[in-house]
């Protein structure tokens, strides 16, 4: 019987399937961090249970860590306690921890791939909605809540309903200055922040196949912003080349065996999806969001859709979003002054993102009125940026290169955008208060963020690329 990629991986991990019950799905790899795990460890203690497979569990500290002076004790007491609890829990339950100071520390969705932990055909979970990132390798990867973290600790399994499947095809060639982030913001603007709920999405088509692994991660990362549990891309030579030689990737005979299996991981030609959508890469330009959910996005040269063009019962929420952002119906955002630029997060903090920004800003200076933070996704990304001399370029441009963590994506640590200020951000969510109480977030690609950093205004990066 022909199967989609999701069905192939899912079926290979079903421990038990019984009518009237969710499937018992085996989880190959469990990633954990300091914020969503402590209550799960507590639960285990109350039940007197061990972590069933500690060797299949990997921990790092990322959400609530400072991004300057990381090796000094964390100043804020609650944050310090939370990070200390992770250390204590990992020691007690026998889990490998890449904590602060470890050369592998970083955002959980950056370190999994770069260490070769994320592999095609795996089932992976983490108490974080952006776990969908790992789908870029052809894995079933999705975010879970803390009760489920406890379930995976205790049983290495989850009770899950098999999801519906959606295929999103993007064909054609992207224009100059248009990147993976623009693709996903474009899809979001077309299908809305709820358009993928209940589905696992497979991204396909020539524009997706042409992307690097890091760009594919950016796409899969934001699947959750459409409400989808996960998104994945069939593994191909690009995938295999990325994985080979990484720290925990299979090697030798194991590699050959793994590779033979990975090559079977694709949706059969006649497999049926519950939903299929198709987009043309030529229609996509640099994107920007103007509202308070990631579906509220538009081409950077477009005007904000009017409230009256929205369905009646959605107008109140729509108007509330524009009021929060300080924007008006039909306005253009081009030329609008910005206060902060944040380049980072599990969406866009990898070495290719930093290289792209560095190449663009080389020998340029940031606008005086703008504060620019670059937060690398991991210690390895940070080190590589330094090895390649990107740190010098950022310094010359007046950008602050900070230490790895989730940082201003969610403003859980001290990296918050002040109330009322506009932040052009490469992160994934523009929710009210996401980057700090009353902060206003505009989601963009790293290239568009770099352009705003230099001009101090919202800018169509294509115009600057044309001048160069």
């Amino acid at each position, binding site marked *: 019987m022909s199967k989609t990629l999701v069905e192939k991986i899912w079926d290979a991990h079903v421990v038990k399937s019984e009518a009237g019950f969710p499937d018992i799905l085996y989880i190959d790899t469990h990633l954990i961090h300091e914020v969503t795990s402590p209550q799960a460890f507590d639960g285990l203690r109350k039940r007197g249970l061990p972590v069933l497979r500690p060797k299949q569990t990997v921990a790092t500290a990322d959400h609530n860590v400072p991004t300057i002076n990381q090796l000094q004790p964390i100043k804020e007491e609650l944050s310090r306690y939370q990070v200390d*609890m992770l250390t204590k829990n990992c020691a007690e339950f026998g889990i490998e921890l890449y904590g602060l100071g470890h050369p592998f520390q970083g955002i959980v969705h950056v370190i999994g791939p770069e260490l070769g932990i994320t592999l095609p055909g795996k089932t992976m979970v983490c108490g974080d909605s952006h776990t969908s990132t790992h789908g870029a390798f052809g894995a079933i990867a999705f975010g879970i809540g803390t009760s489920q973290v406890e379930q995976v600790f205790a049983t290495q399994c*989850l009770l899950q309903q098999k999801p519906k499947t959606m295929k999103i095809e993007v064909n054609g060639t992207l224009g100059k200055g248009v990147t993976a982030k623009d693709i996903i913001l474009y899809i979001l603007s077309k299908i809305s922040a709820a358009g993928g709920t209940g589905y696992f999405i497979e991204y396909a088509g020539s524009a997706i196949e042409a992307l690097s692994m890091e760009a594919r991660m950016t796409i899969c990362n934001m699947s959750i912003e459409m409400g989808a549990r996960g998104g994945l891309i069939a593994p191909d030579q690009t995938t295999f080349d990325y994985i080979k030689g990484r720290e925990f990737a299979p090697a030798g005979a194991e590699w050959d065996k793994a590779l033979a299996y990975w090559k079977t991981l694709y949706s059969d030609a006649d497999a049926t999806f519950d939903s299929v959508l198709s987009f043309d890469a030529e229609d996509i330009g640099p994107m920007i969001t103007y509202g308070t959910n990631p579906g509220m996005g538009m081409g950077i040269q477009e005007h904000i859709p009017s409230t009256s063009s929205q369905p009646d019962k959605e107008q109140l929420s729509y108007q509330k979003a524009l009021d929060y952002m300080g924007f008006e119906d039909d306005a253009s955002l081009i030329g609008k002054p910005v206060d902060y630029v944040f380049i980072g997060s599990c969406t866009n903090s990898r070495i290719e993102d930093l290289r792209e920004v560095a190449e663009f800003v080389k020998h340029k200076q940031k606008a005086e009125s703008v504060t620019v933070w670059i937060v690398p996704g991991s210690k390895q990304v940070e080190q590589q940026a330094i090895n390649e001399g990107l740190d010098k370029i950022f310094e010359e441009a007046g950008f602050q290169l900070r230490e790895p963590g989730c940082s201003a994506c969610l403003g859980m640590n001290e990296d918050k955008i002040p109330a009322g200020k506009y932040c052009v951000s490469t992160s994934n969510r523009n929710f009210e208060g996401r980057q700090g109480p009353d902060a206003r977030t505009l989601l963009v690609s790293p290239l568009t963020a770099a352009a705003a950093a230099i001009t101090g205004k919202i800018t169509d990066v294509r115009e600057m690329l044309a001048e160069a």
Partner: protein
Amino acid sequence: MKKFERLLSAIVPLNIENIDTDQIIPARFLKATTREGFGENLFRDWRYNGDNTPKPDFVLNDPTYKGRVLVAGKNFGCGSSREHAAWAIQDAGFDVVISSFFADIFKGNALNNGLLPIQVSDEFLAAVFTAVSKDHNAQLDVDLDKQTVTIVSTGEEAEFEINAYKKSCLINGYDDIDFILAQKDLIEEFEQKK
């Protein structure tokens, strides 16, 4: 997990769409390492000004609205997977959330904590908002066993879906770990085959 029983309650209406879990509980309040106490920061930035004074026009600060059923616009609970959102809603005294659409992860988290998410049609949701705008004390009758929710004043009734297994977990106060652990032999068998 506590057992879910039939509920007759007034309604707290929040007629906003796409309420994300960052609104329900902002990230800066996720530093606690226990499950308790999140209720005081439920909808923190809608409920309080920057100087911690209550915003009088927010529904949770209006004493004429009370009850254990929160009713909200579509796509409730989108965004971050933080289970703290479900804990905060429960900790603030709610047993049921009604919306015309729920985000997946939130729905799962709610069910895993005995907080019942009820998905109803747009029309029924509108009827609930109308009923509560006419009478702040309007009551809903939530019957999990029959899978119905009824607006008491008008008699309008909606049936709702729930997975049969999750329903029995809620009614009996069981959780998934007990269920999966009972199949431990199968898990080990699966691992050996792999």
